[in-house]
């Protein structure tokens, strides 16, 4: 026996490590709707296997807790068992010697509080409240419910035109979403259980890049009904699109010079090329939608007039105003809001930041957009200042990494204090207060607290504030629309406004700043409900037959990730950053789809929604 040895993991340990990674992915791919008691029991059994076995409450107690939960699920005991479970778990939490037992018992206690109804249903009625309502994870998580397995199968067969047709059934913006969608669909992709989520957005981009100019379907016979859409962003245009398909006469009112909303005035063209956006909007308008740009409802035309002149209204005004930090010096020249900067860029009015130091305040996607835009506008140095840690940023990690690659500084744990104004009266520097990361809040995010350190001076000729957007709902409030906290328009889940017949609202102006696909989904829902309100029940469907699934190949295989243009080159222009998949990559990636529309629950229930 040597005195000390170098640790090398054995073969069994290496395999177990692999299994841990598999299980992490598997948990990520959990379908929604599972019985919480059953899941809690499964987690507890994992904890039980982890116990070191030294202290009695953890070694024995976790097993007894599991036994009792098993009895609950079998519907055996009386309601009194819940007290016994609670007492046992509380004692383990109070007396176990380390986190293995304490945390496991807390998990049970959390569940007893959080889903007591489920426990009681099992005990009292031998029934379960859990149920799997939608079996296809990607479709379930896409706000617009796009037929993802369907279009992936079409891409796999090289039928890109049909893929576009199929997507348009639920989302009139296949191109925009192919470039910039946040792809919530990928989060619980069942392929995670095998290796990794399918690159759904990448495949959609392949489809739209390789589709010919796909003409829009023929609209239904004219109904003679008139609908006004206020706000020509993704949500408003989606509503307009489906309403036009249903045969209604639609007019879109847009305050800005051009249509597109945040797709034009928020998302920089290096992510969504302007020409692609213009083509897609032109295609939507080809259905005969009337457009009135540069018209501000409330100033140029009143809400009352619109209500009088149209049979129904859809409000999709978005969240277009900037929020202020409230720090000293914020009104000085040189301090601008992200919204303002991006709006100028959207109208092709590019400011020149050559040789200047730029500080960006914020940690969301918009902060990254302005950071990366500032680099492209020639800034000497761009520093993104954020009061929490990098992993706490709400921006997508690839956006943050992209910004860093292009030369941005990410300065974390710094809370803005004040803007220092130079002798010329313009911004000269941003002062920040260092923070220390603290306790986790109820949402599970750690809070920053003031650190015992001196303020920091960041030289800045330009300070860009990107801490969120607000909703310009004042005018509508005066016209009688009900407004909730934060200026949000009050609309129910069917987009109907309370106490205002025929007026609907959706998108950012109802939810607060969100994503393009959520605005599209709201527009789609509004179109259906407006159609019904007008006394119709038009059906939207795609005349595309989805290929029958071939035997899915579940052998683990890597996910095709999009590559990006060289950072040193791309930071000098506003051209698209992302490189498309090759045909070879698209064929391989599309064959990774497990076709949950067919395999598993899909061929039993909910696998395909052919019309709405």
């Amino acid at each position, binding site marked *: 026996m040597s005195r000390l040895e170098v640790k090398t993991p054995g073969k069994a340990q290496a395999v177990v490590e692999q299994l841990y990674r598999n299980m992490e992915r598997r948990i990520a791919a959990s379908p929604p709707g599972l*019985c919480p008691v*059953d899941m809690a029991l499964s987690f507890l059994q994992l904890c039980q296997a982890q116990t070191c076995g030294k202290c009695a409450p953890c070694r024995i107690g976790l097993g007894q807790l599991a036994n009792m939960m098993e009895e609950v699920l079998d519907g055996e005991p009386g309601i009194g068992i819940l007290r016994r479970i609670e007492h046992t778990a509380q004692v383990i939490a109070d007396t176990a010697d380390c986190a293995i037992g304490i945390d496991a018992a807390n998990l049970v206690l959390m569940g007893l509080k959080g889903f007591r109804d489920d426990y009681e249903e099992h005990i009292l009625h*031998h*029934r*379960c409240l859990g149920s*799997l309502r939608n079996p296809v994870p990607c479709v379930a998580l896409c706000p617009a419910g796009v037929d993802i397995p369907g279009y992936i199968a079409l891409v796999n067969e090289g039928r890109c035109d049909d893929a576009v047709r199929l997507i348009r059934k639920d989302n009139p913006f296949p191109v925009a979403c192919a470039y910039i969608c946040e792809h919530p669909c990928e989060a619980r992709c069942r392929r995670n259980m095998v290796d990794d989520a399918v690159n759904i957005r990448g495949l959609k981009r392949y489809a739209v890049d390789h589709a010919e100019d796909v003409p829009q379907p023929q609209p239904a016979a004219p109904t003679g009904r008139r609908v006004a859409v206020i706000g020509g962003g993704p949500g408003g245009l989606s509503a307009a699109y489906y309403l036009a398909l249903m045969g209604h006469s639609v007019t879109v009112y847009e305050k800005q010079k051009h249509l597109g909303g945040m797709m034009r005035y928020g998302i920089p063209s290096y992510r969504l090329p302007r020409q692609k956006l213009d083509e897609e909007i032109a295609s939507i308008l080809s259905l005969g939608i009337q457009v009135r740009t540069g018209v501000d409802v409330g100033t140029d035309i009143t809400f009352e007039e619109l209500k009088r002149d149209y049979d129904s209204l859809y409000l999709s005004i978005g969240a277009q105003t900037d929020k202020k930090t409230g720090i000293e010096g914020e009104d000085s020249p040189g301090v601008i809001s992200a919204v303002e900067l991006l709006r100028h860029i959207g109208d092709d009015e590019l400011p020149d930041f050559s040789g200047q130091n730029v500080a960006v305040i914020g940690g969301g996607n918009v902060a990254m957009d302005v950071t990366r835009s500032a680099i492209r506008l020639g800034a000497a140095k761009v520093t993104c200042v954020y009061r929490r840690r990098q992993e706490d940023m709400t921006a997508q990690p690839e956006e943050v990494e992209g910004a860093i690659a292009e030369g941005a500084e990410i300065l974390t744990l710094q809370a803005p204090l004040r803007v220092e104004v130079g002798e010329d009266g313009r911004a000269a520097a941003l002062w920040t207060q260092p923070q220390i990361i603290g306790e986790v809040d109820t949402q599970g995010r750690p809070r920053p607290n003031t650190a015992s350190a001196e303020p920091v001076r960041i030289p800045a000729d330009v300070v860009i504030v990107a801490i969120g957007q607000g909703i310009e709902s004042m005018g509508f409030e005066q016209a009688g629309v009900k407004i909730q906290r934060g200026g949000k328009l009050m609309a129910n889940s069917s987009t109907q406004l309370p106490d205002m017949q025929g007026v609907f609202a959706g998108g950012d102006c109802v939810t607060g700043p969100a994503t393009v696909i959520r605005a599209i989904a709201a527009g789609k829902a509004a179109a259906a409900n407006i159609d019904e309100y007008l006394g119709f029940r038009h059906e939207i469907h795609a005349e595309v037959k989805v290929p029958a699934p*071939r*035997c899915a190949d579940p052998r683990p295989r890597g996910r095709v990730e999009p590559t990006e243009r060289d950072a040193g080159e791309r930071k000098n222009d506003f051209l698209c950053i992302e490189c498309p998949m090759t045909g070879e990559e698209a064929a391989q990636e599309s064959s990774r789809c497990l076709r949950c529309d067919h395999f598993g629950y899909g061929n039993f229930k909910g696998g395909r929604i052919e019309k709405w």
Partner: protein
Amino acid sequence: MVNFTMNGRAMSYPKGTTILEAAQQEGIPIPHLCYLKGINEIAACRMCMVEVEGTDRLLPACNTTVLEGMVIRTNTPKIRLARRTNLRLILSQHKSSCTTCVRSGSCQLQQMAHDLNIHYQPYPVQPERDKVDLTTPIVREASKCIKCMRCVQVCDKIQGMHIWDVAGTGSRTTVDVSYNRLLQNTDCTFCGQCVTHCPTGALTVRDDTLRALNALANPELTTIVQVAPAVRAAWDESVGNGSPLPVGKLVAALKQVGFDYVFDTNFSADLTIMEEGSEFLQRFTRKGKYRWPMFTSCCPGWVSFVKSQYPAYLDHLSTAKSPQQMFGAVAKSYFAEKLGIDPHKVFVVSIMPCSAKKAESELPEMRDACGDRDVDVVLTTREMVRMFRSDGVVPEELEEMPFDSPLGSGTGAAVIFGATGGVMDAALRSAYFLATGENPDPDAFRAVRGTQPWREADFDIPGAGTVRVAVVSGLANTRRLMEAVDSGEVDYDFVEVMACPGGCSGGGGQPIHEGVEMAADRGGRLWQLDAASRIRYSHENPDVQELYQAYLKRPLEEKAHHLLHTEHKI
């Protein structure tokens, strides 16, 4: 066409054909439990697994379509092991109480365990906990459910009632009444289609034979049994070697069991036509006073459907009771009087192709003759055959006997009540007569016959006008028809509805055969009986005429109204 080989044989089938369909056509059996063509192709039981060259995993034959060049094998060592293992796993959650299970002998799971030579079970058997409720005619034993989901699909797709659903998640996933309800609190019509499509004994129709046998054992009771039209077209499928037997042997067997009187529901079917046909003419000749169309009311599944799904249409239903209930009311009034016995001492048993008839006989309003239930107990065709078997009654060996008189006669128009379109056909024959005083050609209305689920036709009745009729069967089809009626898309005067596809022939109380729908064949037998009948018009039934002369007077008049009609109450 797609070219491929199966077990070395070259085959060619149209694109989209499944491996299972091709195998069935080629006479290659592939075992399956959950598969129900067109209804349940969900590959849940994994018994139909086959091997395809070039694929490591086994593939389900039921929903894998054949592809060009496929090399398919259906009996390799890998398949054998997979089928045995999966069947043992299914059996490990099934209460194999075959000796006392009502489906023993017609159970697909039992048959398969036998066929696959499974006589040893390595896994501990842990069936799901049972919560059996005998208050409804449909009974579910969870411990026997193999989660094939057929009941869910049949109720969703064929009947459109969504009574059954998947319940629970994870390994405890099972089938239960949807939305965590109890069956008695749902809109279940008790049609029994879930029962006849269940591969095991998990879903059954409540067995009431003991109640009938207890009545037979009571010397104070006069026992009367009535036999529904559709029973005679199906009962012999599970008697002897399954070849057709004349109804006379059925009568003889029921006599052997000990019933004092064996009567025919055909009698009261003719009576129904007299009442319903007269009612229709009365409404049709005073069109403005009524709401249209008028619907038939002899199917209790359909009547229950109207009550829960389209209550606004209740007064569109004919007020005539069903033949079963008319029979009970007449037996406990007219017939008891004729015999001079206390109607409270008359016990009426029905043999029905139907499970909903059990619920119908229990309705509080079906007590018109003497205050007791007009029909005391309803047995299905299957229960009747089980009663014969347990009594050692061998019908095929018995001499044929005629039905007893006077409630034992029926015309050709009555026997077709058991087939979709039959009630309409019979009603039109007599309505024509009632309106014109002349008989039509008995086959004048053949346009209402057939197997299309929704049929329509127009007929001229001289003096009354053109009657626009429709016939529909299956409740999902019925819902489509009701929506079309409701939206004004279609316009009819008279509509026949049967809850079960194909009518009573395909009823929930009929013998169960795996993988075949027998309704059309059985219906064909009934149409043949009609064609061969001496009398083919309900109004010519001499015993019915006698009943009116001696007792009821005329259709729709006071006594008839009291005994033979009902207010449909929710």
